[in-house]
């Protein structure tokens, strides 16, 4: 009999994975983590019944959450990653030779160790990069006490229902703002908007208290099922969201990085939100 895993994110509908082999299973009594192999998606990591990342489609998420803010900024030297224990964001950040320093704050060292062992291609050696400073701490507490400044902050968290809940609070956003240099950008994963429209509404409202320009950009990640995934975008420099494709093209070329999803045209187009999302966040258009 085929062993299957069913995602429990939505009551009436969801994705199913055939399990070829279980590599890792951890049940703390409070949360359940599993890494298994699926024929289509390779190694799949699930937490509390929800897909966190898979080998086959992680590049879409990690490239978009990293390259869009770094290339939009243009002069970013220092990056702060909150969460992201699987190492995928760190890998993409480290591809930019122009980045001089990256701090990653992960609450659970076990997640990093487990990802290095079972999802080695996510970090692809990035945890050994001399520019990387890995801090094991609560991301919320870290930004509340942090005295350093960064050009980009990337929040790569779990969903707001679960351990990542505090990373969707007004307090967290305003603490992050304090840790940003002038003209800095904060981006966060913000769920699949068709399925979780309220998350976009809540984030937009909370970020608007802190940042002058709050918007979302999007990408479709197959195992974040239900349509496009949105990434929250917040900065005080509205122009960064309206770069022309040529500017992005030049910067992308100068970076020398190779990508599989991201390209400058996708970059520019990803800020074009569908009408129902604009309506949810109280905007008339994408300007």
């Amino acid at each position, binding site marked *: 009999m085929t062993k299957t895993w069913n995602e*429990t994110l939505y*009551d009436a509908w969801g994705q199913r994975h055939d399990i070829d082999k279980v590599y890792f299973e951890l049940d703390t009594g409070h949360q359940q983590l599993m890494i298994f192999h699926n024929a289509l998606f390779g190694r799949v990591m699930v937490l509390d019944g929800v897909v966190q990342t898979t080998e086959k489609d992680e590049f879409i998420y990690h490239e978009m959450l990293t390259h869009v803010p770094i290339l939009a900024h243009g002069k970013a030297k220092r990056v702060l990653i909150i969460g992201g224990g699987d190492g995928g964001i760190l890998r993409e950040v480290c591809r930019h030779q122009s980045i001089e320093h990256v701090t990653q704050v992960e609450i659970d060292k076990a997640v990093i160790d487990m990802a290095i062992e079972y999802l080695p291609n996510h970090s692809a050696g990035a945890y050994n990069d001399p520019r990387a400073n890995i801090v094991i701490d609560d991301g919320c507490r870290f930004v509340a006490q942090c005295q350093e400044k960064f050009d980009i902050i990337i929040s790569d968290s779990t969903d707001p229902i679960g351990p990542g809940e505090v990373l969707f609070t007004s307090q967290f956003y305003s603490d992050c703002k304090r840790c940003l240099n002038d003209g800095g950008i904060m981006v966060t994963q913000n769920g699949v908007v068709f399925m979780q429209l*309220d998350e976009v509404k809540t984030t937009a409202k909370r970020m608007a208290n802190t940042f002058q320009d709050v918007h979302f950009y999007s990408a479709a990640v197959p195992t974040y099922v239900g349509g496009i995934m949105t990434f929250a975008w917040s900065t005080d420099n509205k122009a960064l969201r309206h770069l022309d494709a040529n500017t992005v093209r030049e910067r992308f070329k100068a970076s020398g990085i190779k990508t599989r999803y991201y390209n400058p045209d996708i970059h520019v187009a990803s800020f074009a939100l569908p009408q129902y999302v604009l309506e949810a966040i109280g905007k008339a258009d994408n300007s």
Partner: protein
Amino acid sequence: MAVATASSGLFTDVLFDEGKTRAIVEQHGSPLLLLDCDKLADQYRQLSAALPGVGLYYAVKAFPHAAIVNTLNRLGAGFDIASTGEINLLRKQKVNPRNTIHTHPIKKDKDIRDALRFGCSTFVVDNPAEIAKFRQYSHRVGLLLRVAFRSPDCSVDLSKKFGCSPEEVPALLKAANQLGLHVKGLSFHVGSQSTSPGTHVAAIEACSRLIAEYEVPIRILDIGGGFPVDYDHAGDIDIQAFCAPIRAALAKLPEHVEVIAEPGRYLIAPAAAAITTVVGKALRGDQPWYYLDDGVYGMFSGRIYDHARYPLHVFRTGPQRPSALVGPTCDSIDVIEEALDLPELEVGDLVVGRMMGAYTAATATTFNSLPIPRIVVFNEPGRD
């Protein structure tokens, strides 16, 4: 928790044999609650046979215990949960969250989030304020709307505290729909220890009409619990006969409707027994009073909260007279039986209570800093 070796006929044979009962006490102490997983499995099979095609969701609150969850999980049962503590118990036994329903009609936001995080996405509601709590989780949940049907013949009437009236159903369905919420079923709970299936039948018929009248398909009918056990004689209720009218009523439901139930007492009450010891005796007026090492603050808590009288027996014969059986605490309410006909007992005698699985250990306290009695598990599947 202690695990005992298999002991067949625990409640029919062993506990009527003083030597065998004393052997259990010598091994595990007194007071004790004995849990027989074989009897539990038997009750599950009986009710499954009496309600074919009905998904049985054990009401964990009746006796939240790992061995019970394990036994029922292996049999394919689902679980009716009402708190995060119950969720944590199910997590430890690796219960598939999709086989669980959260049935508490009133929840804090954290309760909802904890259940969603576990993977339980079915929730019971019965009022507009509760429905509104789910607006932000709209796609993640499927709701059961609890309807109240008053039952005059239940020992515990649950339709007073929970459930909307049948007349309110259309408006509540509409309100949920406007918030983008999916009401996938109706539920009712006629109350505890239903003495006749009439209320179940009337409720099924009323729900069937409500389902037919609503334009959006409703695919679940949760007929709750209330399936009775025989406390008076500790015998087996003819559950086939009791459920016959219910089966007939269910057969008339629209074909797309899936039926589930939330039995607690029926499954677990006959699967546990208590052993206590007489620790003191006195003559108060004309009446003998026997002081046991457990009472209504312990395993006999259902005497107060559940209005249950458990069948008790002792191992002495002789002329009987009305006697009081009381618990070990300093409180005067700690009375198990005020005037039970008993032979003369001596300090050290054992008193056995049967039918003590439902709402006994579940509601026991540590009043007087007395520990909750030890639970000894017999015949747990997967253990030798």
